[in-house]
């Protein structure tokens, strides 16, 4: 397939704007470098992108059981609301009186998310989960600075954590102490007790954890950290298991981030934009980045928290993404939120129960919203790896689950069906997985060669990294 630069001719262009109706003015010093943007007719432009769209696989196309990503259905009403001119045509620096609707959106969303998470205050500013993690770590840093406890420089993180956790801690100037996970996938309490001390700034944890298990020792874990003088940060990536059923605030967490593009149905857009609001208990509220909207007798105002860490980006966060999330929360409401979570957990357990007689499940108990399979034994016996099975799924029209995460499971496939999949879809997916297992045993070469039906076959990633070609250049 051609790149857009390889289409069209120099003479082609769209006629988009009228001639200048005032005297023309130009800069004294102008660019000399050519601006070789595409030259293409509107018809060919549209065909190019239509062709690209046929080489994409979205939630709209099929089952997307990516563990840790919560690829649930993206409701269309959310998109419609995010396209209202009353939202899209509003300048971020308009006077407050003229944007009361936008402030109401931010205020209400933060209020509802505080209720769901058990937090006292929240910012909608961070643009993604990792951005929220960074924000949360900075809240801890500022809090400790003001208490003159800057000797606390360590953040404790389980070895099963998502890479953004240690990266966010280090971006905020902390060092990371990794602790072991136990045989049950939960935090190893002895490892935790050894790790805490007078230099503990805090703990970063997700619960359910990255192997899909709710850590039954959670209250003990947060108690140990608090007793040592540290704060507890909740990574909300797995909230879809428990939203409306259990609150992170009740588990002992002081700060949380949420992923609106996971739990709250906003679309992934090929890698973003997401939204990573950060909530916290009252003691930390003054440190939130700002401004935050407040309700003063029915009028909304933007106020900078009194000890704010400042800003983690310009303006008001990914506002249209927040509009989508609010629409979703209003749709589901107080009964729908927990209902969605419970069905997410049910779907995952059903799918696990149908696969566990064939695939190895390292954690032999009921899972939460996701479960992990290990293909280590399969690889040793047949040479077929988790990657090979994933590529085999592609030939069956299915997006593979998350591969090789978390690190603590070898040849991992992490599966999260979400609550918006039907029983039929899950059954069909199970059949594909079972068929692939058979293929691995009887004809492994097929899987080593997979995929064969996709627009391209396996790509040379080594070559791509050794000799990076990161842009098109005319020959």
């Amino acid at each position, binding site marked *: 397939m051609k790149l857009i630069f390889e289409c069209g001719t120099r003479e082609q262009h769209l006629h988009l704007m009228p001639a200048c109706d005032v005297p023309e003015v130009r800069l004294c010093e102008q660019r000399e470098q050519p601006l070789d943007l595409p030259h293409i007719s509107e018809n060919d432009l549209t065909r190019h992108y239509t062709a690209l769209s046929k080489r994409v696989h979205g939630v709209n196309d099929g089952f997307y059981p990516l563990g840790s990503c919560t690829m649930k259905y993206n409701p269309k009403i959310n998109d419609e609301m995010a396209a209202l001119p009353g939202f899209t045509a509003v300048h971020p620096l308009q006077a407050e009186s003229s944007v009361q609707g936008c402030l109401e959106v931010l205020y209400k969303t933060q209020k509802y998310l505080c209720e769901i998470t058990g937090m006292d205050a929240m910012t909608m500013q961070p643009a993604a989960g990792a951005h929220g993690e960074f924000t949360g770590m900075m809240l801890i840093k500022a809090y400790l600075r003001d208490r003159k406890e800057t000797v606390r420089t360590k953040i404790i993180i389980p070895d099963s954590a998502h890479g953004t956790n240690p990266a966010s801690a280090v971006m905020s100037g902390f060092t990371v102490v990794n602790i072991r996970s136990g045989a049950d996938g939960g935090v190893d309490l002895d490892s935790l007790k050894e790790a805490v001390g007078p230099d503990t700034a805090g703990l970063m944890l997700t619960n359910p954890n990255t192997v899909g298990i709710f850590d039954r020792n959670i209250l003990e874990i947060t108690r140990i950290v608090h007793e040592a003088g540290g704060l507890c940060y909740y990574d909300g990536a797995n909230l879809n298991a428990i939203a409306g059923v259990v609150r992170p605030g009740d588990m002992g967490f002081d700060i949380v981030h949420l992923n609106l593009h996971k739990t709250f149905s906003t679309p992934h857009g090929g890698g973003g934009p997401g939204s990573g609001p950060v909530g916290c208990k009252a003691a930390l509220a003054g440190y939130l980045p700002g401004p935050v909207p407040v309700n003063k007798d029915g009028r909304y105002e933007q106020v900078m928290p009194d000890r704010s860490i400042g800003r983690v980006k310009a303006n008001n966060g990914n506002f249209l993404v927040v509009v989508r999330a609010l629409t979703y929360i209003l749709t589901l409401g107080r009964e729908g939120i927990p209902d969605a979570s419970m069905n997410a957990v049910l779907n995952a357990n059903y799918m696990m129960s149908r696969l566990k007689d064939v695939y190895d499940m390292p954690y032999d108990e009921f899972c939460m919203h996701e479960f992990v399979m290990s293909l280590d034994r399969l690889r040793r016996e047949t040479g077929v790896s988790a990657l090979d099975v994933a590529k085999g799924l592609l030939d069956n029209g299915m997006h593979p689950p998350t591969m090789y995460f978390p690190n603590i499971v070898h040849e991992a496939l992490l599966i999260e069906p979400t609550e918006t999949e039907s029983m039929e879809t899950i059954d069909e997916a199970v059949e594909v997985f079972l068929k692939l297992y058979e293929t691995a045993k009887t004809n492994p070469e097929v899987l080593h060669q997979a995929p064969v039906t996709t627009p391209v076959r396996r790509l040379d990633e*080594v070559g791509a*990294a*050794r000799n990076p070609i990161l842009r098109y250049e005319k020959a």
Partner: protein
Amino acid sequence: MNFPEDLKYSRTHEWIKMLEPATCLIGITDFAQSELGDLVFINLPKVGDEVVKGSVFCDVESVKTVSDIMTPVTGTIAEINESLVEAPQKLNEDPFGAWIAKIEHITAVEDLMDAAEYEAFCKI
């Protein structure tokens, strides 16, 4: 799998070639490169860096991993093999020829194995 006789080996799979009394070349072994897979990049140290035995002095990347390379000697980086930046595959193709750095002013050395000991160590 190669285990050249004239080199010394660390438990973390680096090889050392002593040049003068207080200088050496350092690289990764054939065993190391086969474990690491196709290497795509090396983050070389800087000339003048002080390195301490038993600690990390650079890292190598494959497509999906980063691996620390340890130094079994304490000293100063005298030279680095810049050609590895453009051609990291040399570490896979010719691990004992593709030296990573020359370390000088060596003041301490870990206990190192000879070729036979290292070969046995790799077989465990």
